[in-house]
């Protein structure tokens, strides 16, 4: 087996040749590349909603309520005569903004706590881990619900900050655990010892030597929790505790009176649900592929 281990070095591909990395990724993870295309098109739809969407997502048209999918309305219209396709496109923005910020917030705080925990050890580690234990004892959605129940809605730039916080907090302990474990293995790496032996400062060791090496787990967690965050946001909105009407949001589109129209307008349930599933699917698949790609353990 020696031939194999030596031909697949443990070190991940470098940042030195980005083009090669991309080609490599596409070759090894075609599904992952495909999911990335989905994510990319969603992102574009989210950023350029104004140009991409055929209708104003807020425009009420009582003359056109509950219309089935047609050439005018690809995904039909809802009970207010609003174009569902346009609302899905704008919904991508809502989903991405909330999940991106909350996943970034949660993963980053989690990662920093995880690295600090691993590097300093001792009582700092103990206290951080005790606190993470506490957060971990809550099921994700329960924690989010408690946060939502606890914090009043606070809107900033049209985004509900507390919703982001509610989605981010359950992410923190989960990322913290994983990153801490990764950082612990790096903590005992000879190159960290070498840095300590050279007398570098703690912050230099943490940020220059350890942090870049937990980027892989961080990225994997980040994409995985993007998916989680979209799902969580949709669930909260579905429960009526997240984004509020008339903001276009996928989970919201499934709640309220959508379920009243099982028979008359199944598209009201079908398309937003598909949008959530596709988005979460893409992020999950991408995260999965990223892990397979970055984690050499399963590499042949």
């Amino acid at each position: 087996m020696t031939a194999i281990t030596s031909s697949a070095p443990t070190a991940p591909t470098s940042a030195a040749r980005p083009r090669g990395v991309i080609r490599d990724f596409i070759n090894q993870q075609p599904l992952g590349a495909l999911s990335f295309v989905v994510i990319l098109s969603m992102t574009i739809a989210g950023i350029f909603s104004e140009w991409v969407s055929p209708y104003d997502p807020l425009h009420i048209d009582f003359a056109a309520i509950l219309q089935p999918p047609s050439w005018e309305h690809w995904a039909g219209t809802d009970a207010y005569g609003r174009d569902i396709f346009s609302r899905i496109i704008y919904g991508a923005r809502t989903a991405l903004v909330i999940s991106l910020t909350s996943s970034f917030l949660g993963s980053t705080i989690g990662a920093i706590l995880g690295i600090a925990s691993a590097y300093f050890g001792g009582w700092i580690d103990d206290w951080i881990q005790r606190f993470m234990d506490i957060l971990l004892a809550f099921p994700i959605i329960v924690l989010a619900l408690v946060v939502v129940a606890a914090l009043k809605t606070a809107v900033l730039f049209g985004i509900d900050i507390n919703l982001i916080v509610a989605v981010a907090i359950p992410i923190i302990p989960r990322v913290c655990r994983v990153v801490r474990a990764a950082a612990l293995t790096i903590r005992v790496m000879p190159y960290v010892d070498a840095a300590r032996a050279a007398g570098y400062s703690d912050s230099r060791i943490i940020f220059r030597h350890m942090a870049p090496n937990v980027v892989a787990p961080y990225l994997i967690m980040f994409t995985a929790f993007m998916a989680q965050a979209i799902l969580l946001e949709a669930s909260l909105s579905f429960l009526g505790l997240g984004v509020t009407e008339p903001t276009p949001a996928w989970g919201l589109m499934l709640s309220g009176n959508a379920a009243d129209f099982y028979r008359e307008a199944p598209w009201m349930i079908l398309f937003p649900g598909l949008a959530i599933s596709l988005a979460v699917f893409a992020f999950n698949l991408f995260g999965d592929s990223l892990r397979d790609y970055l984690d050499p353990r399963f590499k042949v």
Partner: protein
Amino acid sequence: MKSVLGFAGLIAFALAGAITPADAQQPKRGGTLNFAISAETPHYDCHGSETYATLHFSAPFYSTLVRFNLKKFPEIEGDLAESWTIAPDLMTYTFKLHQNVKFHDGTPLTSNDVKATYDRMRAPAKGVVSPRQATFADIGTIETPDANTVVFKMKAVNASMIEHFASPWNCIYSAKDLAADPNSPRTKINGTGPYVFGEHVKGSHVTGRRNDNYFKKGLPYLDGFRGVFTLQAAAMLNAVQGGQLLGEFRGISPAERDRLVAAMGDKIRIEEESWTLNLLVAFNVEKKPFDDVRVRKALLMSIDRWGGSAGLSKISTLRSVGGLIRPGSPLATPPEELMKLPGYSKNMAASRAEARKLLTEAGVPNLKFVLHNRNLAQPYTPAGIFLVDQWRQIGVTADHKQYDTAPYLATLNSGNYEVAIDFSNLFMDDSTLSLAKYLSFDRSPQNLSRAIDRELDKLYDAHVRERDVGKRKAMIQAFERRVFEQAYQQPILWWHRIVPTHKVLMGWDMSPSHNLGAQLETVWLNQ
């Protein structure tokens, strides 16, 4: 208006579960009624409640003194009272009770129980919740000359007093129980109603079984009932459609109705009537720029009520355009009059142009604010969506913020809001009830505009004591005009009640209020 009827003569009704000719068939006895209750009551005390959740739960177990005759609404009929007389000066009300009425625990009902009940509502013991203290504040003394007679002596005239006696929340409790624990009705049910309390499975259902000692002979027809709590509208609809539940007596939306009709065809019966409920939009005059009447007026004028009514009535329980009194009821302002008031014009282009002008004059052409709303699917959310859209059309940006009830109420109480959607829940059309909300903030804390307007207060007080119908009507219209001209708050739309019942369900009476007709003693199953 109804009080005027009372003034015309001494009217006594002796109705005891009479079957009207409309029910052509002979009622059948037996069977259990499964129906939906779309909310679950926190407690069983009618007195301490303001919600139909309690009534739909508790009413079948209790009787009241008098009640509305739903077949001839808003006439009053006796329940426990076999007959009653009202003194011409409206200062004395005398009720004769039925003989041989027994509580479910077997003790006979006497006038003392009635007195204890009303004393509890008007002057509650410490720790007892009674939201209707003010309503009965005009009662001076309650006398019980004999076991079957109760006499109410008034301190002041209240032209609508008899209607208040007919309030469905006035369940008669046992004096003995109240003496033992004034709060016992919260957790224990002991009434004289047609059904005896069976079980309450939290989060699931309540059951009642026939009261064999019910004082109205031959009633009820049913062996019992099971009220199932269906908090998700979809679940309720599915269950009604699947035949697991035979009806929902509060009211559903038109879309829900259409779905049931489409799925069930002629198996479902739909009854519709305008509803004694409305949603309001209120501007907090303590916040800038809503202290400026032009801003408030502009916002009201830009709402297309007639168009909104046409559209929202298809998807929500909102429908009728109306003023402060339920449209269609005798005291209501007729549509042609209404259209002259700000916010009711049919020429929306002109109205919106005017609104823009007013905003520009007020110096806030691109107004932005938060619209506070309650987080309930029907009909708060449609109302919010509608308003946001209407205001968008005059360049106003409203951020729609929906809360759970507790934080919503907390926000409203704190006064820390600019514009809010509010709710007015009435059980009858009487103006003393419906106008109270618009009084000055210091008299009516539920006035979300927080305005102090002594002129309104004066008009209201005069109209309460006024017995002449014509004068009274004029005062009401003056009051209404004043409210709308000042644009403090205004009903957006009145609700429309649609009740679906399976056709096998017979003997249930539709009315404009979901708070009424919950006793179910005349209901029977045709199967």
